[in-house]
Each structure stands twice: as C-alpha cells, then as structure tokens.
C-alpha cells in the first residue's frame, strides 16, 4: 500500500523569469514556483489509481517525488509503512516506474537493458536469469531480445521498458502517461500489463489524459489541479460528484465546481 500525505514541492524561479514580471500562474510567488502545494492520496493492494489533471497541474512533479527523483519540501510518502522520503533507497527498491519516453539505452540490446537494471536492483545469477526469462516470455519479447534498443519499434521498446520497470518485482508501480504517443497495439500491451499487475495485487498509480483508459482500468481517481489534489475517491463517487456518467464531462464539471476552470 502507498499513502501520500500533504506533499509540497517548490522550485526557485530564475532571475530572468522573475524579471519578466507578473505571471498568469498563481503558483508563482515569493521567487518560487509552488508546483505541488498539497497533494494527498492512497492506493491499496490490487488497486489502480488514476491520477488526473490538466497539463501543468503538478502530476509529473508528484510522480517524480513518488519515484524519489525529487525530494518533497514537506509531506510524507509511505510504502507499506516505510517513509520513503526519509529512506529514498528503500523507495527505489519498492517502486517500479514507467513513462511514455521509454528511456532505454540505445546501444544496448533489449536483454542487456533489462538485465542491467536487474543487476542495479541487486539481482544476481540464477535469480536474475529466471526473473528476466519469465518477463521476456510474459511480454513476448524473445524475437527481439538481442536487437539493439535503437533499432526496435516503439512497441518493442515499450515492452522492454515495462520489463525493466518491474524486473525487481516492485511493491508499487507508478506509470507517467505510459500510453502517450503509442499506437493501438502498443497501448493494448500497456493496458494488459496494468491488468496483470492489478490481478497480482500490486498497487498501480497511473497518470493519464485518456479517460477511456481510466474507465477500463482504474478503481479510484485522484484529481490534481494547480498543485492541489481536490478529489480522491472511487469512480462511482467521481461520476456522482461530477454530475455525469461520462467521465470526460464529470472531470470538467469537477474542475469547474472546484473553481479551477
């Protein structure tokens, strides 16, 4: 289980940016851009949480804090009771992170990419081999395993990056817009992968703009805007509070209702 409470993160504005004068974004003040001002949500075993919000809402910053790439200014992130803000190395062992940009090493093969990350997560010898082979079979990667990543198609790359993200069997999986720019076939691979995780009881946090995917996969929804999470509940509650059975409409109504549009 992952619990996020009152996360805050600000970035110092450059002098150049400050000299430009008044900005439209209300989060820019006191020489800082307050990217995330108060974000809280939770995701239990076997749940898929959809993280929604307009562009620039603070979703990526929030996910970067979950993945420990960024340290929050305040707030807590607990994974199975461990505060990963204080113990980032534990957080990195517990989280599997996947984004739309595959982030594979082009001059390494798909196999080498996955095995490299497995080794960095401390897997060795037979355990490493068995785990990798199982993933390669599950994701149907055997035909392109030894091809360099720079020569793979987008779908193949995404499969390799999925394998890389979960090779260490993480407690929580975080996905940052994983289907952006992907074709239908590859999107389906990602959706199947998320379903597989859900069935295995792994909590999944899933940031997206595609509400059809949310409808297909998510149990809960968290809506963030202007760095604040103002909704964290079930899909049924999302529709009820948004006064619409259509997720797109409910989302718009929720934003309007909260004074964000």
């Amino acid at each position, binding site marked *: 289980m992952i619990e996020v409470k009152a996360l805050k993160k600000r970035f110092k504005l450059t002098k150049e940016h400050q000299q430009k004068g008044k900005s439209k974004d209300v989060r820019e003040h006191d020489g800082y851009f307050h990217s995330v001002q108060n974000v809280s949500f939770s995701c239990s075993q076997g749940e898929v949480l959809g993280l929604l919000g307009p562009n620039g809402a603070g979703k990526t910053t929030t996910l970067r804090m979950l993945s*420990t790439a*960024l340290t929050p200014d305040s707030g807590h992130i607990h994974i199975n009771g461990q505060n990963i803000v204080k113990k980032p190395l534990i957080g*990195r*062992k517990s989280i599997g992170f996947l984004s739309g940009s595959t*982030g594979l090493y082009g*001059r390494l093969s798909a196999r080498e990419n996955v095995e490299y990350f497995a080794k*960095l997560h401390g897997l060795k010898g037979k355990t490493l081999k068995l785990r990798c082979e199982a993933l390669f079979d599950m994701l149907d990667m055997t035909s392109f395993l030894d091809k*360099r990543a720079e020569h793979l198609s987008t779908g193949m790359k995404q499969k390799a990056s999925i394998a890389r993200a979960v090779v260490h069997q993480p407690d929580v999986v975080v996905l940052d817009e994983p289907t952006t720019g992907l074709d239908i076939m590859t999107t389906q691979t990602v959706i199947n992968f998320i379903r597989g995780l859900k069935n295995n009881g792994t909590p999944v946090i899933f940031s997206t703009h595609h509400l059809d995917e949310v409808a297909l996969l998510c149990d809960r929804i968290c809506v963030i805007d202007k760095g604040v999470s103002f909704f964290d509940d079930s899909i049924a509650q999302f529709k009820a509070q948004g006064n619409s059975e259509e997720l797109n409409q409910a989302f718009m109504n929720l934003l309007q209702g909260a004074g964000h549009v």
Partner: protein
Amino acid sequence: MFEVFKKELLELLRDRKTLFFVLALPMLIFPVIMGLVGFLGSQAALKAEQKVHTYYIINAQHSKQFAERVFYHKSFKQYSGAEQFDTIDALKEAVRSGSIDVGIYLEADPADALKQGKQAKWQMVFNDAQSINFIYNRLQSLANEFSELLREQALVSLGVSKDKQQAILQPIVVSKVDTADKRENIGEKIGAFIPYLLIPLVLMGASYPAIDLGAGEKERGTLETLLLTPVTRTQLVLGKFLTVLLSSLACATVTVLSMAIWVSVAVSFVELDTIKNAFSSITGMDFVLIFALLVPIAAIFSSLVLAISIYARTFKEAQNYMAPLSMGVFLPIVVSLMPNMVLNAKTALIPVTNVALAIKEIVKGTVDYGLLSMIVITSAGLAALLLACCVRWFSKETVLFR
C-alpha cells in the same frame, strides 16, 4: 558501481563517434596528418634547395671576382634577357615581374673603398615573403667569403702576416663547456613538446565520453530511470567517472604508442638521426613516470568534464561548455614554457603546469622524485575534490532537472 562502469564501457565501445575520437583519431589521423605535413614541408624545402635563381648584377665591373663567384655558383643563373636594368627600382620591378629572382646592386668597388677606409655597401633585391628562401643566405655567404679575402689582403698590405691576423681580429675566444649531458640538451627541447601533445589529448579522451554519459543521458531520458535505481549517487558518479578516466588514459596511451610505432617505422626507412637521438634517451622507466603523472591529470579532467556534462541540459550545450575548456588547457602548458619556469616546491602546486614541467624534467633525466610525489599527491587531491563536487552536483535537483 562496477555494474555502472561495465555498462558504460560497453556502451562506449559500441559508440562509433567516441571510438573515432578516442582510438582512430590518435592511431591513424594524427600520424597521417603529421606525416603529410612533414612530407610536404621537406618536399618544399628540397625544391627550394634545388631551385636555380636567375640574377642580374648592376655595376658588375666594380667587383669582377664577386660576379664570377656568383656566375659559377650552382644555384644561380645569369639573366639572359635583352632588357637592361640600371637602378634599384628597375631591379625591384624585374623581381616583381618574374624576369629575375634576385638583383644585386654594387654601389662601389670594395677594394677602392677599403683603400679609403670605407665600407662598400651592396644591395640585394628579392622577394623575402616566401617561407622557404635560400637566396639571401647564399649571396650573403658569397659576399662574406669575398669580404674576408679582401680583409686578409688589406691586412697583409699593412704588414700583418696571415698567422697573426686571427689573433688581431679576435683577441679573445670564449668557448662553452656545457655541464648538461646530451640527454639534458635533447630533453629540454622535446620535453617541452610532449606535454603539448599529451595533456590536450587526455582532455579530449575524457570530453567525448563525458558528454555522452552526462548530458547525453539527460537528453535521451535515460538518466531519470537510472536515478530511480537503488544505487547511490556516489556510486553512479564513480561508475561514470571511471569510464571517462579509462577513456582519457586510453586516448593518451594509444597516441603515444601510435607515435612510437610510426616513428620507428619512419626511422627504419629513413635515416633520421635527430629523432633517433631524441627518443633513444628516453627509457622505459621514464614512460612509466610520465604515465603515472598523467593519471591524476586525467582524473582532474574527467571529474571536471563530467561535472560540466551533468550540468548541461543537452549534448550541444555540453559541447559549447567544452570548447573554451579545450583552449584553456593550453594556458597552464604555455606557463610551463615561460623563462625561468622550473619545477620547484611552488610550481609543483600549480595544476597542469606542474605536470608539464615534471614531464620536461623526466625527459631531461633531472627529475626530483620528491617533487614528483608532491605533484601526484596534490593532483590526486584536486581530482578527489572535483570528484566530490561532481557527486554533489549529481545530487542536486536543480542541476539534474534544469
């Protein structure tokens, strides 16, 4: 850390661009360029040496002896055209138009001038803008020989016998007794050249992989995934640093080996005594010492370029930062060549300059091992400090997510 190092090395060996700059360039391109420059230079010198110059003398009657000396010299041919020249300006015009290569204006008869206690002033008109030009030296030599002959005759006529002339003309002869041995002399010359070649190469060998491992990773989006692994930032930086260091040293080693091979090949074909003498004085131990000095320098450069590369947002931005550094590295080497710049306890503390001075001392065979240890320790200390900065840099969100 070693997993990061192994992976970075594997990627580096698969990168054609880096392989080209680190291995192919020093192995093939440098010797080819240097060979080509040497060949073209020697050809140009040979051509200039063999060239026969057309000359014209105004007032040849003032010194028939000199005119005959020029006439019979193998490198000069008398102007055979119909045109006559009688002034300096006419000679200048003839040189410009290409009718003659050199014009000689004999203003007065030197024998007559000497009798009156005066010097005869002759003028030589030629184009001195050519880089390789033997005209003036050859004519000067002929004029000097003739001048000496006239002086000798004049002194005899004054009653000074030939055997006493030398003493009268130069009562004191100072001769040099050099305490420096042959190695020290040659070492002074080539010892200054070696750092010029090696130190920038060490930097070049570090720059290309560093850009790829830092800014390149940021640009390709692989750095963020790497940061999410349970490997500490220190381990990540050390893994990358070792790769850059290895590449830097490989570049310098490959260059030195390739130069040694190419020089030995060249020497086996052509008799090049200067090169033979120069290189025969350097022992295997000297090479080991030079390499030992290059290790901390390579470590300094590797930490520096890695820090720059991590700071840069893109590959191109990193390249822009590296350009002034590549030129700046020559400054401390030039400082080492300044007059009175010797290796001592003070200069041993100046980064890069100290290594350049020490390499010269090693080649000369006059190195102080105490100072050498001091250089290694201070350079290694500086490298460690820079590496610590690099780790700190790598832990800063403002740098990683600029």
